[in-house]
């Protein structure tokens, strides 16, 4: 069974939601505390949403210095899979595991609602269960979700197909450049996005369209492509 470490920072608040979504997809979910440097041989590390360390400086700015992030850096450098959701995406950008930055929403207020996103890339460890171009509605809930990057970086991201999720036309909730909702590193092994698929992983919450991200992870073959799900 594929092992997934869900990192808990003080202030993480989607830790349990993520844990349940991972376990529900059939993977072996484990919590890893922010002071730990042992990732328990996990094949995939997830940085969940929340307000790590209160986000009082910049979202994710303090978390990047935590002991566990040294282990995550090493894991990523060795080609290990890392997913950052919302605050986790902010941390990955602060830690320079992903390019660009997430700044205050253009409307300056927190925004919480389901938004339409399109899956632009399906050959990553967390999107393989979807077909390219799939559009789905998933909740966002953030104050600092406006993705920005310099022009060279943007050109590179588009040229290399590293935009993993994009808000569909008219749905961009935060002013992100090029409607970008999520990106990945060149190898596709580090992925970050703002929407919360773990909140739409069970039909009783109104929709389970987000469960595919966790099914992708559970079916992933480290070092290879997606495991056959049949």
């Amino acid at each position, binding site marked *: 069974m594929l092992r997934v470490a869900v990192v808990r920072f*003080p*202030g993480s*608040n*989607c830790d*349990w*939601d993520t844990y*349940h*979504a991972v376990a529900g997809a059939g993977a072996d979910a484990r919590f890893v505390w922010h002071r730990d440097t042992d990732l328990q041989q996990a094949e995939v590390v997830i940085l969940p*949403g*929340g*307000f790590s*360390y*209160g*986000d*009082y400086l910049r979202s994710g700015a303090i978390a990047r210095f935590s002991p566990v992030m040294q282990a995550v850096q090493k894991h990523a450098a060795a080609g290990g899979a890392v997913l950052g959701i919302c605050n986790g995406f902010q941390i990955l950008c602060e830690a320079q595991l992903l390019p660009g930055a997430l700044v205050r929403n253009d409307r300056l*207020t*927190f*925004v*919480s*609602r*389901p938004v339409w996103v399109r899956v632009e890339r399906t050959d990553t460890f967390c999107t393989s269960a979807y077909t390219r171009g799939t559009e789905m*509605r998933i*909740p966002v*809930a953030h*104050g600092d979700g406006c993705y920005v990057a310099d022009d060279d970086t943007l050109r590179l991201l588009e040229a290399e197909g590293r935009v993993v999720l994009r808000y569909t036309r008219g749905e961009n909730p935060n002013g992100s450049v090029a409607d970008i909702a999520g990106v990945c590193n060149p190898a596709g092994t580090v992925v970050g996005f703002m929407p*919360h698929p*773990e*909140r739409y*992983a*069970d*039909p*009783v*919450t*109104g929709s389970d369209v987000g469960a595919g991200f966790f099914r992708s992870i559970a079916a992933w073959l480290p070092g290879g492509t997606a495991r056959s799900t049949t």
Partner: protein
Amino acid sequence: MTAAAPVTRASSFPGERPVTLDVVREHNLTASEFDRIVAMLGRTPTLTELGVFSALWSEHCSYKHSKPVLKRFPTTGPQVVQGPGENAGVLRLPNGWAVAFKIESHNHPSAVEPYQGAATGVGGILRDVFTMGARPVAVLNSLRFGPLSEPRNRYLFAGVVRGVGDYGNCIGVPTLGGEVGFAEGYSGNPLVNAMCVGILRESDLATARAHGVGNVLLNVGAKTGRDGIHGASFASEELSEKSEARRPQVQVGDPFTEKLLLEASLELITSKLIVAIQDMGAAGLTSSSAEMAARGGVGVEIDTGLVPTREAGMTPYEILLSESQERMLVVAEPHQVAAIQAVCRKWELDATPIGHVTDDGLFRVKHHGLTVAEIPGQPLVDDCPVYTPNAREGAAAIARRKARPRRAARVDADEALEALLDTPSIASKRWVYEQYDSTVQASTVLGPGGDAGVLRVATEPFALAVSVDCNNRLVGLDPYEGGKATVAEAARNVACTGAEPLGITDCLNFGNPEKPEVFFQFREACRGISDACVAFGTPVTGGNVSFYNESPTGAVDPTPTVGMVGLLRRAEDRVPSHFRAVGDRIVIVGSSEGAMGGSAYWAELCDFIGGAAPRVDLEHETRLQQFLVAAAAARLLRSAHDCSEGGLAVALAEAAIGGPYADRGFGAVADLRTYAPALSAIEALYGEDQGRVVLSVAPAALPGLRAMLTRHGLQGYLAGEVRAPGGELEIVLPEGVHRWPVDRLRAVYDDAIPRRMRGISTDRPEA
């Protein structure tokens, strides 16, 4: 005043002012209350002691004007695990689970500092719930402001919403619903009521009852500063021009520390490391320690010199009365202290021993060894004088019920619907709830924008429905019927989702109780709430009284807010509020006599608040609730929506407009020619008779629905059907047909608040 021999001894803290009658008045204590204190102590109190009395004998802590009335609330039932008197009420759920919930006001702090006032209001109510051992799973709020045409009201509204959001969002508790109203009476004195709902295993229930002589008192969480000193007394006086000077007394919230405190507290409780725990809320260390001791019938001794402070040189008086946020008082056996400190360290918190439980029944405070307060503990908490003020309905209030509007509405019957949907009190609250995280915890079954929020409980099949309501216009017009109507609406909202109403918490916001007309409103509204709760079998499990909601322009409308919790046996049976499929039949349950008294139509379009309030038939309401629950369980309903403000036309429009994220609204036709043939168009469309719901039902389910209605002694009126998206809402009356394009209604409904709030900053009042 005559003093017997001193029963206790205490010394003035060096530099403290002597206690004179002026100092007593500054502390909001009357001469006769002071006499009682002197008699109790057998001597003049020290300033520190006077501060302690002023906090515990404030209206906010002592309920001195409300106790006799509150005693009449029904508080028992087979589902009650914990009634009033603890930090929160607790009701039993299936399979060993329980729900802890409470509502509380933070009106005065929010009036002078909306962002922090609202944020710390949320923080306080969260702590009340997790000190019971419950994990907070939902926050709701009930807000009232003056009209948005006034810049200051827009500033207060924006700041409060941002404050509520930032706190709940950061800590990771979804805001599942609430209500917002706007009326002239709240212009100088907004109301900010926050409710929290938490889930626990019944076996993990914690209490705030100190016991075990020699047990240690620990201060857990944030350091104590000079913020919020005298907050409890501030909450117990009228607002005035001088209130602005109180701004430095408003506490500052830190949701990150609160999140750590939440996790640490739950870990301490579930690992059974502690004896008792209480939030340091209003009146801080004073009330938490004195109340915990009194509940346990023991004494306590604290050394304020041991309390970690943010700044040097704080006096015992300041430390005792500080309302710094994110602090808990814990009682534990001495051998557990090290283990408790280890848990707290893991969550980056301090846990500092500051005192112990004694057997002498005294509330004793030392500061580095010097005894600065020594007061008999039980009398300190229990012997505050209780007042039963005169209650007399004002002549103007009586006359208002017999009056009729002096002018016609400014628009015709068709335009009235748009005008009402454009009224901020009725319009979509998306502008508000999209600033609140409503889906964190991944348990939201029905989010904001419907009749009630619904959330699942762990992996159990059942779910909870939660709602807050108050029809302040009806309460103002007729406090007794209005009190009944408020509970009935909350119960109906919960029942519309398919959940069985279980119990309530209330937040009773009124003016100065020493005024006979205000006390009349209070007493009668509470009588209405009691009668409704008895009829519905929904006991009152606790709450909060907020008096002195007065500004120089007068008292607020009486606003007894009711928070209701209901049990939905199977989460997947939940019934949304909006139409869902073309061809579904529209059924109205409940009859109409065209009740215009207190209606939104008269208030908003004729500038008239008056007329006879509709009578609430509690027996009918009970049957209606039971029918809704049974029909949901039998899966007969596609949607169910309460008919309240704005009457049937607004209820039909809201159901047709659809939920906040529907692609497009549905068309609908409702033929009311035989529903209430004797009524005028205005009465039929906008009358606010109680006890009504609008249902949509699949055609195949109609026979089952009819049988279910008959079984509950109710009549349903088959009014029409749901039509294709993009169509019209068509209401047929004896005098003609009324038509509105639903897309247009939706645009008006959605934009009513945003268009009034465009460009509003929360940073400072507009010039």
